[in-house]
């Protein structure tokens, strides 16, 4: 068994982890970045479409191009990288001493550190979670699997495709299948509105005449060896299938694009508090979880719709790790709760001190037009022409807005303008 020492261990070599590792090293910390695949980059390596980096780098890049920018930055930063390395567990031995147990090609490695930045991404939701029954023949893929097959390995997973879910991943895969000569029979969405950006609805579905079935659900998959058809039904307001509305769509492939859930197994096992609304850990403004010195960033923290936010969170967690390592804890007088209120499903971070600038990420429950995004305790009201669940709200609050206000907690809400 080998041992190593460093200030910060970063778990996950995707955008959030790479940004966290590079930033930590740039701030003068010794860093070990642990990635379980044989290369850095994470999911953007299989995203060949543009829309990456507009906020973070000021350029419109493809996912692949964005990934290389961060890979180069990690290499320049001097952060040490362990590839093909799997984190088995994390032992908290003391307030500022953790041991990350890693299974690596060279054997078991114990990495002793003061702070951990957890950026292990998200997993795709499965058929079981969305309640689709029936057969389980060949021809069922998650959107991420289909994307990996097509865009990293050049394999077309099927010819006649039904896509479950109209989030951006589902819409983008619909276009990929159409461009490669497959027939996309339908994109089926259970909610009455599309899950993804309107840009993607237009450019991925309308451009290719792909039908979008809103307020519909796939209730059953049928097929012996290979998928033969799906049974689709209309759903009522309670999102349950309406009896008598079922119809068949013949197809050979089903792609599940039913959203992501943060990968938090390791954090849960350590006893970190989880927010049921995000599925990710409860964090403060430096993205520290309820375990001192363990930070979270990217889709492991909250499912982001822009890679830019994931990378930004990685950097923020690195700033937190730096403060933690230097002071053996975060120097803060007290934490105040941030609570979601009207038409807000979640707000991250969950606690703020009022002593630093902070970025709050939130998502609405339902689309609304002509609204104010408000934090009454700070006297903050910001107009928005429209809010949609597909597009995160990102609020930058500078330290000065807290100085003028007295508050026990903050409530973030979206209210009709008036």
């Amino acid at each position, binding site marked *: 068994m080998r041992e190593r020492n460093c200030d910060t261990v970063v778990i996950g070599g995707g955008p959030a982890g790479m940004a966290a590792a590079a930033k930590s090293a740039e701030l003068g910390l010794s860093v070990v970045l642990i990635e379980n695949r044989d290369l850095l980059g994470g999911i953007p390596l299989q995203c060949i479409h*543009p829309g990456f980096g507009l906020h973070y780098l000021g350029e419109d890049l493809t996912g692949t191009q964005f990934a290389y920018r961060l890979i180069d930055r990690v290499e320049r930063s001097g952060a040490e990288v362990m590839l093909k390395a799997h984190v088995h567990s994390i032992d908290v031995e003391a307030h500022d001493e953790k041991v990350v147990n890693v299974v690596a090609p060279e054997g078991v490695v114990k990495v002793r550190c003061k702070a951990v930045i957890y950026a292990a991404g998200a997993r795709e939701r499965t058929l079981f979670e969305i309640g689709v029954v029936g057969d389980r023949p060949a021809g069922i893929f998650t959107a991420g699997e289909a994307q990996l097959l097509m865009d990293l390995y050049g394999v077309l997973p099927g010819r006649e495709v039904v896509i479950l879910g109209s989030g951006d991943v589902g819409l983008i895969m619909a276009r990929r299948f159409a461009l490669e000569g497959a027939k996309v029979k339908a994109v089926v969405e259970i909610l009455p509105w599309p899950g993804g950006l309107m840009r993607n609805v237009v450019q991925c579905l309308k451009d290719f005449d792909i039908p979008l079935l809103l307020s519909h659900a796939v209730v059953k998959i049928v097929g012996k060896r290979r998928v033969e058809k799906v049974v689709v039904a209309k759903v009522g307001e309670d999102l349950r299938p309406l009896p008598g509305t079922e119809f068949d769509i013949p197809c050979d492939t089903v792609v599940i694009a039913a959203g992501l859930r943060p990968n938090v197994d390791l954090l849960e096992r350590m006893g970190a508090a989880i927010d049921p609304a995000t599925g990710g850990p409860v964090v403060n403004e430096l993205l520290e979880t309820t375990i001192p010195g363990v930070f979270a960033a990217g889709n492991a923290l909250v499912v982001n719709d822009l890679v830019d936010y994931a990378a930004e969170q990685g950097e923020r967690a690195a700033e937190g790790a730096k403060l933690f390592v230097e002071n053996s804890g975060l120097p803060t007088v007290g934490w105040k709760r941030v609570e979601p209120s009207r038409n807000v499903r979640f707000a991250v971070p969950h606690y703020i001190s009022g002593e630093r600038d902070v970025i709050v990420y939130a998502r609405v429950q339902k689309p609304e037009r002509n609204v104010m995004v408000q934090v009454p305790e700070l006297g903050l009201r910001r107009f928005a022409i429209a809010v949609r669940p597909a597009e995160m709200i990102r609020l930058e609050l500078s330290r000065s807005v807290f100085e003028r206000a007295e508050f026990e907690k903050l409530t973030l809400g979206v209210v009709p303008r008036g």
Partner: protein
Amino acid sequence: MGEVELVCIVCPASCTLRARLVEGELKVEGAGCARGVEYARRELANPVRHVMTVVKVRCGDLPVVSVITSKPVPKSCIENVVKATANLEVEAPVELGQVLIEDVCGAALIATRKVKRASGAGCPASPTTL
């Protein structure tokens, strides 16, 4: 042309635009702002899109490389780009930003991933030169 309905993608408001020709001039209704009117004009006169796909690679550590058009091409030309890439095969190594097709629909086709050379049966360590 009769009335055409479009969804504006300029901002999250996603206005539904209705456009029609009145005495040779394009009238756009439903736009919340001037940018929506401009979007409808562009989208009806000359809609353009970036095209992304993958191209076969010989002797690479990955079997395909991802590509994008250097600029958006006319929507009507998307199929030509995909057809041009369908039968293309390039030899590794492929560098980020390498031009794989000089001109398709007025754009260049550019590699957006690196593919390293993998030597093996039929694949000498460096590319064959003719």
